[in-house]
Structure formats: C-alpha cells, structure tokens
C-alpha cells in the first residue's frame, strides 16, 4: 500500500543535507509551508540555497533561518516585505548572496526543471541589468534571453488536502508556487491541513498528482489556518 503520510515534521524532513537547494512554496503567507520551515530550523541543515518569492518577514520562518546563518544564498524575485530587516542586514554586510530573478522567469525556470527542459528563451528582462551576461538571441525580429532550469534538492510546499498517494488540492490563491515546485525537486515534502481517504478528492480538483510528492505531513495549524 502506497502511503506517503508521515507522522511528524522531523520524519518529513529526514535526510535534508547541508548545502541543499531548497524550493519553498507560498506567496505572502498564503500557501507558505510554515511548519516545514520551522522544522528545517530544528533539523539543522546549513549552507542552504533557498529559492522562494520573498526573503522573509520579521524574525520568523525563513528570516530566522537566515538570521541563524544557515542560508548561503537566496534566489527570489522580491527580497522586500513589510519587515525585511534580517535579509537587508545580512545582504548589506555581504553575509548572504542574492540571485534576483523576475517572478515569471523564476516560475518558468522551475517549471523547466520539472519538465525536462534545460533552457528556454524569454523576452522578460531583455535590455535590463538582469539580462547582463545572459545569452541573447533574436527570434522573428524580437530579442530574447536564454534562461536555464532551476531545480531543487528539496521542495517544501503547502497544500490544503492530501490523500495517502500524496495527491494534493489547493485552496483559494494557495497554489501559487506550490504545484510548480512540486515538479522540480528530488525530495518533495508537503504540509497539509486535511488528510482525506483515497478516492475522496475529486480527480479534477487535484492540483498536484501524488506522483510528484514524496512525503505528506498533516499540521493542525497552517498559516493562514481555517
């Protein structure tokens, strides 16, 4: 019997190694796998590369992971927030690397990694500092830059419901980076708010087929929690 449901956050994060590239889902607080991020803080892996849209708020979650000196590099589109103090301080002091990627290019680079595409061309960032050093090429009279696949060793994501096959549904705007990140890492770990029996999730409501998911952990409180 396939059963991807594990009983604890610690079990869900077993084997995450130092130096891992960690994809972290969510946009704002919605769909952000808070319990798994807290678990990663506990777990102890360091020298991490974190790939996510923002660079942490206040001194919790990813910001705390950074403050503890466990993050070598952030790959993100928007390292600002209502309270980006930890990242800004580390960045100013040269203690953290930043790879700034346009949000759509970030999503597409991750999709490419999940879809077996090593590189693709996009018009985004052409003529801007973010295209510097990248291969440029013209197609049908328009300029494009080449972007490469961005893959993780680990993906930490949040879903709304899961079954034992690892099938996931999403709620509201909670999909965001989660389904694409689920396709692009060697170890995909999902926190969800509800576990359902196999067959209870409508085939057309499943946003991430279990094929992509390695471990599922149910948490009593996600953020936001309903």
């Amino acid at each position, binding site marked *: 019997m396939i059963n991807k449901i594990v009983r604890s956050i610690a079990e869900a994060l077993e084997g995450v190694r130092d130096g891992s590239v960690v994809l972290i889902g969510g946009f*704002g607080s919605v769909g952000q796998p808070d319990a798994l991020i807290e678990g990663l803080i506990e777990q102890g892996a360091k020298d991490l590369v974190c790939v996510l849209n923002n660079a942490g708020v206040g001194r919790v979650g990813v910001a705390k992971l950074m403050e503890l000196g466990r993050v070598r590099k952030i790959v993100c*589109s928007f390292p600002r927030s209502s309270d980006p103090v930890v990242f800004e301080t580390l960045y100013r002091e040269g203690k953290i690397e930043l790879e700034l990627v*346009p949000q759509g290019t970030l999503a*597409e680079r991750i999709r490419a990694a999940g879809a077996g595409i090593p590189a693709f061309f996009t018009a985004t960032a052409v003529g801007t500092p973010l295209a510097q050093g990248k291969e440029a090429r013209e197609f049908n009279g328009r300029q494009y830059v080449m972007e490469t696949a961005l893959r993780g060793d680990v993906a930490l994501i949040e879903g709304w419901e899961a079954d034992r096959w690892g099938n996931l549904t999403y709620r509201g*705007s909670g999909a965001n980076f989660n*389904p*694409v990140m689920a396709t692009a890492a060697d170890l995909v770990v999902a926190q969800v708010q509800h576990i359902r029996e196999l067959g209870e999730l409508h085939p057309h409501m499943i946003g991430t087929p279990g094929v992509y998911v390695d471990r599922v952990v149910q948490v009593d409180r996600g953020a936001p929690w309903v």
Partner: protein
Amino acid sequence: MKPFSREEMARKAAHDIPEGWCVNLGIGIPTLVANHVPPEREVIFQSENGVIGMGPAPAEGEEDPWLINAGKQPITLVKGASFVGHADSFAMIRGGHIDLCVLGAFEVAENGDLANWATSVNDTAPAVGGAMDLAAGARRLWVLMEHTTKDGRPKLVERCSYPLTGLACVTRVYTNLAVLDVVPGQGFVVREMAPGVDFDMLQAKSGAKLHRPS
C-alpha cells in the same frame, strides 16, 4: 493650477478601459483603478499569484486568509473567477494574454522604456517582483505616476537614467498634470492637461519633448 488627485488619475485610467479587458494592476496607486471602473462595465482583474477575477476589497472582519492579491492584501472574488498556479499565471502574462497592465514608475522615456524597480544599480536588496514579466508580456502598459519627483525633477525623460524594467513597453502615462500617449517614432503626445496647466508649463516640467495631438 489644479493638478489631478490620485483618485482622479485612477478614475481617468479606469474610464479608458473597455469592457472585457483582462487587466493587471501593479501595487500602489494603480490598485485604485479597480475602484473606478463603472459597475456596469465588466473588466477582469488578474493578479500575478494566480487569481483571475478579483473583486473589491473585503469588508473588515470578512477577509478570507486564503485570498490575497500580488500586493498581499486581502481580496474578494467576482462570479466567473478562477485560479491557476504561478507557472500558468506567468504563462498568461508572458504569452500576451493580459490586455493591459497599469504600473507606477520612476521614469518613462519617450521611446516607451520603463524604469520602475530600482533607483540605482547599487540599491541595497533590489526587488523586481513581476514587473519585468508584465513589461515584456502585457499587450499594453499604462503608467500612473506624479509628473515630477518630490524635488521637482522630471519623470518623463528622453532616456531613462535608472535601471530599466522593460524596453519600449509603455503606451500611455497618467500623471497629476496630464495624460500622454507614447507614440512609436514620435514620443510623448499630450492628450489632456489638468485644469490650469498649459502646454508650455507641462513642457517645462518634462525632460523630453512633448507633442500636441495632430
């Protein structure tokens, strides 16, 4: 001279959006545009985080914690709304399926170049979000901004001095002093001026040659 207020700028832009367009509004002033679309006119507001069909902000206390926009503010849905993930949302944006994007700006050049993400290349922690994707992908890009900086320097320029967001992408600018089209091969063409503003005054506050409508 009676400059347009932010609400008036937003109302003018809203008035110019025809029924049926799919529109992405940047964070800040552009967000106001949604409030001014006439209620009988159906416009579909898209948000980068995968919401297609945003409605007005929820009443206080009625926020759904699972529903936010790209500015991370709580939102509502309208009938007909749908959701996609980030990969599909930006495929929609980059593939030319957004009729209009409205953004703020630091500078707009007469060839339509846009600078709106970093005020210097040495910015501490530069942040770009989805601006470059929208600049490259939306069918039309309108800018809502003050006509000059707080210390009086023009924001309409011959060539942007700040790092670019996108090339030749801006098609119209709504400022507190005027509405201008960016016409390929010509530059800024004045469509409307605020009460008490005349062409010479507007030109004096602009860093690029302005044109009267032909």
